[in-house]
């Protein structure tokens, strides 16, 4: 099994002792087939047990190992060392406050996620004995892609609007709202519109499209946001030009 010496440059920040983050270099012998997360684990096990970072599944499922790798938001468990030459620079996800080393404070995202009501609000209440809600494959397909989000927040780190205007609800949360709005069983769109059709909702998006490029699950949040914009615009015209259509 071939080995390679890898130079990692990791952003460190210890709130107890550091006034500001600083880079630290580690030189580690790595196996060719390792990912950046393996290299970090190796550093933690053999060189520096104080290094902090989040991870769990090591298979691009849990969404907890998002970090900036050479300036690009990526999952550390999906970034192969063999794809990088020279020093690999590892930083916490951009646009989020740093809690410690590569661990970020994600409270802002969690609060936004809650605000968009990312759960089924049934259009019609159903009693248990009426059985399950039914859906055709075509109805499922309408929103399926937007269910794949694993809340890794890479899209927030890629989005320049979120970096500049932190109150922007942002790609993943709006995509998830759209996922439920598109669901034939759901009737909660009006409740979600208050959050996502607002100025700090979808209208803060200028369609850079970076979110969709970095999304490891191919959710295509940029598509969801543009669809929300179009639907909200149609709402506005219907309400203002054809108010009699309103029930």
């Amino acid at each position, binding site marked *: 099994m071939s080995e390679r010496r890898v130079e990692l440059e990791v952003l460190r920040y210890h*709130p107890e002792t550091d006034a500001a*983050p600083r880079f630290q270099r580690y030189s580690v012998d790595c196996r060719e087939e390792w990912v950046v997360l393996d290299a970090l684990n190796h550093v933690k096990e053999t060189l520096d047990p104080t290094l902090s970072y989040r991870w769990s599944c090591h298979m691009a499922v849990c969404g907890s190992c998002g970090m900036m790798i050479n300036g690009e938001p990526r999952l550390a468990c999906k970034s192969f060392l063999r794809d990088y030459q020279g020093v690999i620079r590892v930083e916490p996800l951009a646009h989020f406050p740093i809690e410690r080393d590569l661990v970020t*404070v994600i409270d802002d995202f969690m609060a936004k996620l809650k605000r968009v009501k990312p759960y089924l609000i049934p259009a019609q209440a159903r009693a248990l004995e009426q059985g399950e809600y039914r859906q055709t494959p*075509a109805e499922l397909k309408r929103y399926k892609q937007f269910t794949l989000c694993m809340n890794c927040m890479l899209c927030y780190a890629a989005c*320049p609007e979120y*970096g*500049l205007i932190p109150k922007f609800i942002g790609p993943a949360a709006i995509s998830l709202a759209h996922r439920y709005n598109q669901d034939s069983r759901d009737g909660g769109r009006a409740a979600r519109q208050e959050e996502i059709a607002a100025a700090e909702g979808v209208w803060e998006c200028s*369609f*850079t499209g970076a979110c969709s490029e970095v999304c490891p699950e191919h959710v295509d949040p940029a598509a969801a946001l543009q669809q929300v914009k179009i639907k909200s615009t149609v709402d506005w015209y219907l309400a203002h030009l054809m108010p009699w259509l309103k029930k």
Partner: protein
Amino acid sequence: MSRKPYLREETMRWVFRHPRYLRYMAREFSCLFIGGYGLLMVWGLKRLSEGPAAWRSFLEVLQSPASIAFHVLALGFALYHSVTWFKLTPKALPVQVGGEFLPDGIISGAHYAVWAALSLAVLILAGAF
């Protein structure tokens, strides 16, 4: 345990973080040329309303090297703007027929077709044929 989250300041450096941000800025920047061209048209209309002499001097200004350079630039940016937007239309306007979504090429192709039809209509109205 003490908490002291550190927020790194966002600078304009993100523009150079990846080529996609430069491409995006170029698309945004194109609006200056498209807006400028719109203003030029309005100014032309004003000169037209002021009589034949004013109109002729407007046409002369259009033939100056600076104006030709502006037109070439504006055309380049207008094409870049249109092509990049048309490429994005399948994301904004997906059309589901039965179980499947129409292929991207059909959605953006339809936009090109409407563009061509409208341009043709303008040319016909202008008496080009």
